[in-house]
């Protein structure tokens, strides 16, 4: 077991974990952050995407011990109190989700994308979300959602 100290959604957690524990499993089973979900075992689906020190990562592909000393933002920590993050607002407005299982990862991938490129074209949005699979929407409304989020955040889509 190894000791880790990780700040998740603004709260610091101290825990003893086995080195083999995946970050996503620690989030879900260790500290009850079940908003982050697992969809595959080959890093393809991106459902487990979180922000690690501000950048999107697939939390199934990071060991919990590797997050020691880091800050993690999950879908549960994105809103500011009752104030939705613009990406969350945009996904609702543009019907960017159906079953919602890919949504936590998709939203955080979009947050990361817009952080790097506040003014993405449709092609850039599609490229930025390439690591997140959705089986419900055909991506059409997800792409629209991200473009709309860019507008809400003051960037706007090319």
């Amino acid at each position, binding site marked *: 077991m190894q000791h880790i100290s990780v700040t998740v959604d603004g709260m610091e957690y101290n825990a003893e974990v*086995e080195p*083999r524990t995946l970050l996503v499993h620690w989030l*879900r*089973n260790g500290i*009850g*952050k*079940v*908003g*982050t*979900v*697992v*969809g*595959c*075992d*080959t890093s*393809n*689906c991106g*459902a487990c995407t979180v922000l690690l020190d501000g950048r999107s990562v697939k939390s199934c592909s990071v060991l919990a011990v590797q997050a020691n000393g880091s800050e993690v933002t*999950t*879908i*549960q920590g*994105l*809103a500011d109190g009752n104030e*939705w993050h613009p990406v*969350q607002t945009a*996904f*609702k*407005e543009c*019907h960017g*989700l*159906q*079953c*919602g*299982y*890919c*949504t*936590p990862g998709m*939203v955080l991938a979009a947050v990361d994308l817009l952080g790097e490129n506040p003014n993405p074209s*449709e092609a850039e*949005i*599609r*490229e930025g*979300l*390439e*690591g*997140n*699979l*959705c*089986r*419900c*929407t*055909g*991506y*059409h*409304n*997800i*792409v629209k959602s991200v473009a709309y989020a860019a507008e809400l955040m003051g960037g706007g889509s090319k």
Partner: protein
Amino acid sequence: MTEVLDTANAIGRPIKRKEDARLLHGQTNWTDNIQLPGTVHMAILRSPVAHANITKLDISGALKRPNVVAAFGAEELGDLNGSVPCVWPVTDDIVMPDFPALAKGKVHHMGDCVAVVLATDATSAVDALEAIDVEYDVLPAVIDMEKAIAPGSTIVHEDKGTNTCYVYNLGGGYDEVAAKADVIVKRRFINQRLIPAFMEPRSVVAAPMGMSDEITVWSSTQIPHILRVLLALVTGVPENNLRIIAPDVGGGFGGKLQIYREEILVTQLARKLGKPVKWTETRSEDMVASHHGRDQIQDIELAATKDGKMLGLKVTLLADMGAYLQIITPGTPLLGMFMYPGIYKMDAYDFTCTGVFTNKTPTDAYRGAGRPEATYAIERIVDELANELGMEPMELRRKNWITHEEFPYTTVAGLTYDTGNYEAATAKALEMFDYDGLRAEQKQRRESGDPVQLGIGISTFTEMCGLAPSRTLGALKYVAGGWEHCTVRLLPTGKVEVITGTSPHGQGHETAWSQIASSILGVPVEDIEVIHGDTGRAPYGMDTYGSRSLAVGGQAIKAASERLVDKARVIAAHQLECSPSDLEFVEGVFSVKGDAEKSQPLGAVAFEAFTAHNLPDGVEPTLSAEATIDPQDFSYPHGTHLAAMEVDTETGKVTLRKYVCVDDIGIQVNPMIVEGQVHGGLAQGIAQAMYEGASYDEDGLLQTASLADYLIPSSMDLPSFITGSTVTPSTTHPLGTKGVGEAGAIASTPAIINGIVDALRPLGVNEMAMPASPMTVWKTIQAAKGGAA
């Protein structure tokens, strides 16, 4: 975020979804989120081979591993090893092999369950699997359907003596019309095996309740109600003691229209151990253990006159059942049986389907279930007939389709289509597509010898959905009905509960059902709570599949809401001292006709019904109403889909440049949700044409057993879609709705392949296997050139 609504017009509005707030904040209740105190976790040892006798199975090693509570093979499980049921024995002489939850001495497909370990944590359970001692005597695998039914084949289930599950025939008279035909086009289409690959892996938790016999099962399922009946029958748990909850469910597409062996195992082991038991599949397990879809060899003949009048259709299918029959495995191809003639008029139709056992994962419903296969066959062969006759493919369709004046129309397959307007949908689609402009570009590219050729793919489809009139299902030997139930409760404070038997997994029922109730009750959408997916709270239902929930369940909501208004009217009349017939009900308020001052809102009536201080004689307190509706008929959405395909003839790479569809699904309750359903269906249908295919090697090992190998399209592999609609209300469904869940998946596959073939016609290409991978396309081009590769 509150929507201010004119409730009378709640139907037809693109209201933002109620579901989204929780889904967008991670406040969801997926089955795998459930962490009950004292839970024991189950892990499954699965067969790594397709067909083998288990010559040794010793679980004792696992029992010695840390934190292990129990382990079972079939022998240890004994009578608790229930068998997976099939509820659709399509013929009297169908062959139905036993499908035990844990394999009994023999495995029949890669992924078959061999043993289970239960431990106090999931990691220990998985670790202990490695301590199970198992040996297999591997047998030849039955993979190819034609070889499977040929003499001398290895038999999947030796006790049955055959790999033929059933032979089903319908229709007749084809040979007579074919004898008079000028042209007969024959094609063999392979409708390849697909994997539903819903994003949320399956998960089951079963918890015995206290010391009673009651047990609650949470499952990521589309069918909590059907599951309750079947689990009760399989496990012997009295149905009244069994509660099934489908919490938030992350997609299904037919893949969760099932009673799975793991649901049986978890339930039985929770009873045996007296503890909550939980199992969540990995994606690798899902790919081999959740049922697959499609997988048919389709031999199709279309007979016509030389001027393009279709005379008759002959369909001969081999349908791969896989290793076992699951809930509706044998019936799935037959759901397409009535749809092969599509939208066309003809004189004769012969249909034969042979179900075949192989050593593969069982097949069952996947988005469209039988109808995509039928639509693919008819829309592909119509293009081939057009080519044979030198006719423009849309012209040939026009010449043969049912015109809008001819509805209701009884097809050669025996269905009566109530309404439709193929001309209108097609005209709109052609305009949106710039059909003429693209044909001009195609001509130019052909003339200039452009290495990137352009093709236009057409699919003018219809489908049958709104499953289903119970008598029809009975005639087809399906053992359940097709009705749907709704209870509407008006609470004392004027809020409303709509309790539905449908069980959504992404469709947005909470929003759309609120809209239907709102439009009748005059209660704002946000004051309506939709309760579903829990047999404890919503006891009656037939669940969600086959584009049925709105078409059938919507009728029940309408009927129950109207009955509630009828009862409220009696109470209101009593309060207002008038006759019920003197009242009008507008926007949630009863008022006396001609005296608007005398009025009472529905909420006030609700409070009167609650206090019961002043109810008319004979009227019971509380205000609720229910309805169980058996649909009058199927519904028949239709549409015209057009795809512009670019084919790089140097590499074989295909690009979907533009996709236009105009769907007629009748009245739309929430056009935003409708559009989303179309998009998602398109993605899956396009994926069948271009990307996906479950592939087995000759030993029966699934080669596409992860999302790294089974290629679900990402955002970069699909374009934005151009969607439109026409509205021809259903006349057999009181809301005028038809259903939309499967339309996109049914229509799009042939549009894509027709487009690719159209691009390559000048090179002599007249067929294209699916998925149209670059290698497949390139090799098809080379073969057409005469093997010049």
